[in-house]
């Protein structure tokens, strides 16, 4: 039996992790959370996720630094990364795209857009309805 995809949500705001995590509840996937870049990097060392949603501005280690580390290592180079940011800055978008980010979404958008970005990159199956 196939394991459900593992998604790593990285943001220093618990509220933002909760919003995306809640929106993902209807899909069969495993979710891990990290609240800064260093925690995210540790989580990746334990088990390589199928996709990472990565905030850019975080304490300890920024999302851009995590992205650079991911793309510099053969084992993690191909993990799709969706960058999450508080602002849609074209220069920043171009920078993270050139570093290998698969997508870039702003926090002002609806959660549905984040889910759409994730589903474009990893196959998510809807959860089976709960038995009565």
């Amino acid at each position, binding site marked *: 039996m196939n394991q459900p995809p593992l998604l790593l949500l990285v943001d220093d705001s618990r509220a933002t992790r909760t919003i995306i995590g809640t929106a993902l509840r209807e899909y069969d996937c495993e979710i891990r959370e990290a609240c800064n870049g260093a925690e995210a990097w540790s989580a990746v060392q334990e088990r390589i996720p199928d996709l990472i949603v990565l905030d850019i*501005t975080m304490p300890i280690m920024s999302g851009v630094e995590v992205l650079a580390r991911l793309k510099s290592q053969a084992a993690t180079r191909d993990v799709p990364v969706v960058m999450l940011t508080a602002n849609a800055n074209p220069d920043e978008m171009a920078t993270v795209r050139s570093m290998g980010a698969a997508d870039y979404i702003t926090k002002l958008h609806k959660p549905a857009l984040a889910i759409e970005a994730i589903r474009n990159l990893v196959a998510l199956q809807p959860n089976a309805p709960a038995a009565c």
Partner: protein
Amino acid sequence: MMPTAPISQEVPTKPMDLTACVRESTIRVFCAFLALEVSPCLTAPTDESQRTLVGTVGLAGDFCGVVCLHVRPKLAAQLAAVMFQIEAADEVPPEDIKDVMGEVTNVLAGEIKRRLACCGTIVLSVPTIISGYSLDVSSLSGVHKAVFLCQQNGEPVLAELYNNAHPPRNL
């Protein structure tokens, strides 16, 4: 990441009034990020017996300054209830209220940064939350302050942008 009106990705390139920048950014963040309307008001609350929460985010690079968002605990709890999708605002734990204040201030600073793209490269700090009574943000001499005072359902909201050169380069 809340229900929202369509978001324009347009980045302003023309010179702008910083007060208008703060006003439009605040209205947009409350509308798009929190699905809440704010309306301008002219007078600041004078009741100093109430505690205030202030979220701050620093801007560095080609535009240096700080964004401050002042609200009272009642509204901060309501914002947290909206973000965590909890019906009763008084059930939101204090840590989650601080988390949401930080995130809302971060998104406000991000929106201001987006509108100041013509200034050059700007980086944001992580947010800091201050809580206390009769809070007033002081600044060094020569610092310019742009302010937007508004209210959400009767609760005051004060958004401020301090910057140390007015007009900033390229603005």
